[in-house]
């Protein structure tokens, strides 16, 4: 555990002591602000029964952030270490592969959470200027953030996996972007196909990221969705671990 914290601290330092980290935060803040402006203009022109949190993610910008920021966060994790050779110095110390994977994923997750904090400010602004006390409650905000968190877990674990596959950060980013986009598109497919009794569409419906985010943003936490995200995250982390271990089989 002590080694995990040491590794986590170094990974976090790598995020927060680098210009890349702040560029990502700045870009994401800009995009959140942009989506906030879009949202406000829409709300100004015609009222909507939807909770504000739900409308937030409805803008394409939300998905743009998830799809673009996660590869940018994770591409460095393994690929850079492999490229620069520090992977060798790291793995020849008495650390376990699991500790390394866990620390890298956790650091990306912490950064991801910090990255989303500006959105909270937007929500508070809405709350400050609205006269309806019920517009925002802890449930919807909590649900929204849980959704953001779970989607983040999934996409970051995808990114970790992609990064562990290659020595090139660019390739890692592209692989994780492609994986992420395909997962996202499967979600679209799920929405396009009417839910029938057939098992195919049943399975597909679990991949409906859109639909699931709907629920989260309404403050509805569906266990199936949580299980879906958590298990898929663990699945990709497991794959990452296997890839890291694989140098021992060759």
């Amino acid at each position, binding site marked *: 555990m002590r*080694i995990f914290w040491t590794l986590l601290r170094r990974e976090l330092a790598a995020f927060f002591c680098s210009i890349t980290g702040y560029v990502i935060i700045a870009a994401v803040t800009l995009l959140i602000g942009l989506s906030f402006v879009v949202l406000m203009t829409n709300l100004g022109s015609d009222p909507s029964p939807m909770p504000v949190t739900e409308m937030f993610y409805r803008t394409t910008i939300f998905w743009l952030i998830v799809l673009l920021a996660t590869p940018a966060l994770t591409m460095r994790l393994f690929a850079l270490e492999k490229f620069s*050779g520090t992977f060798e110095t790291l793995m020849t110390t008495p650390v376990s592969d699991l500790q390394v994977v866990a620390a890298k994923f956790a650091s990306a997750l912490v950064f991801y959470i910090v990255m989303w904090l500006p959105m909270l400010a937007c929500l508070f602004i809405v709350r400050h200027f609205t006269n309806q006390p019920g517009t925002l409650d802890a449930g919807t905000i909590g649900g929204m953030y849980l959704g953001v968190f779970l989607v983040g877990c999934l996409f970051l674990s995808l990114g970790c996996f992609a990064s562990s596959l290659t020595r090139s950060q660019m390739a890692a980013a592209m692989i994780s972007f492609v994986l992420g986009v395909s997962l996202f598109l499967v979600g679209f497919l799920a929405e396009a196909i009417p839910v029938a009794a057939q098992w195919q569409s049943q399975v597909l419906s679990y991949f409906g990221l859109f639909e699931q985010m709907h629920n989260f943003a309404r403050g509805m936490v569906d266990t199936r969705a949580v299980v879906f995200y958590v298990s898929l995250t663990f699945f990709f982390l497991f794959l990452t671990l296997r890839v890291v271990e694989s140098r021992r089989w060759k």
Partner: protein
Amino acid sequence: MSDTAMIEVTNLTKRYAGHTAVAGISFTVARGEIVGLLGPNGAGKSTTMRILSCFMPATSGTVRVAGFDVFHQSDEVRRRIGYMPENNPLYPEMRVREYLKFRARLKGLNWRRSRERVTTVMEQCGLTEVGRRIIGQLSKGYRQRVGLADALVHEPELIILDEPTIGLDPHQIRAVRQLIKSLAQKHTVLISTHILPEAEMTCNRMLIMFDGKILAADTPDNLQRLMAGGSQIIAEIAAPADELREVWSQMPGIEQFDVSPSEGEFQRCALTPRDGYDLRPAIFSLAQEHGWIMRELTRSRHSLEDIYVQVTKPAEEEEG
């Protein structure tokens, strides 16, 4: 498990897809030795070191470090080695002291111990004045010292250094060698290099590797002695060439001779002695007897360079 052997390698083979990097080598390194792994680029030195440091597994054969198997007891082995890979990779965004502390913690030292050790190795490696500098901004020589300090920080029993002096200027090379030599008392050191004088100067024993095989393993002196049989005596004597030829043909202990004219009346004689003979005293008294003037009498010592070339050459031809 023997108490004296630090490294025991038996029939180590490493095959990559399509080619064999290390082909069934065996060697042992005793505690406290400084051993040089010498060979041209691509001889399998780095691969051997990577296997020793548990970074990758062997295809076949066993490797034991301090009695522990590198594959099955890799944790125990990793605790006991300090490894500096080729090109000395570091995290460029970290500060020197911060980096060393991070490494010390990873290697299992507790907070207090890591602070003590980092201070000690920074003094040992001459890094005290750059402790707060960012690694990426340091000169190559300092970075190399950071790598060395990292290898030493947990007081490992075995230190493995892959090409520790590559890319340094002569001053820095000397400093690094001095540092390696000073480690000899407490640690076992295995260094790889393709530069001969380096191995000659720092190591007690050398393993010459070529094409995945160990071709020779001995002390630098012994390796030289081994080759001394083929060394020549050069004598420059002012005398008629015919007389010289006659004298040489009668002298016991000479296997071959060659007389060629040098400047003036001097003749240059290249004499190959039979095994074990030292011809020099005999030549001197001969010259005295005849009243010849002699201006040079030397034995051409084979440098390790020759040994290296000689040992690695036949294999090269076989391969070709």
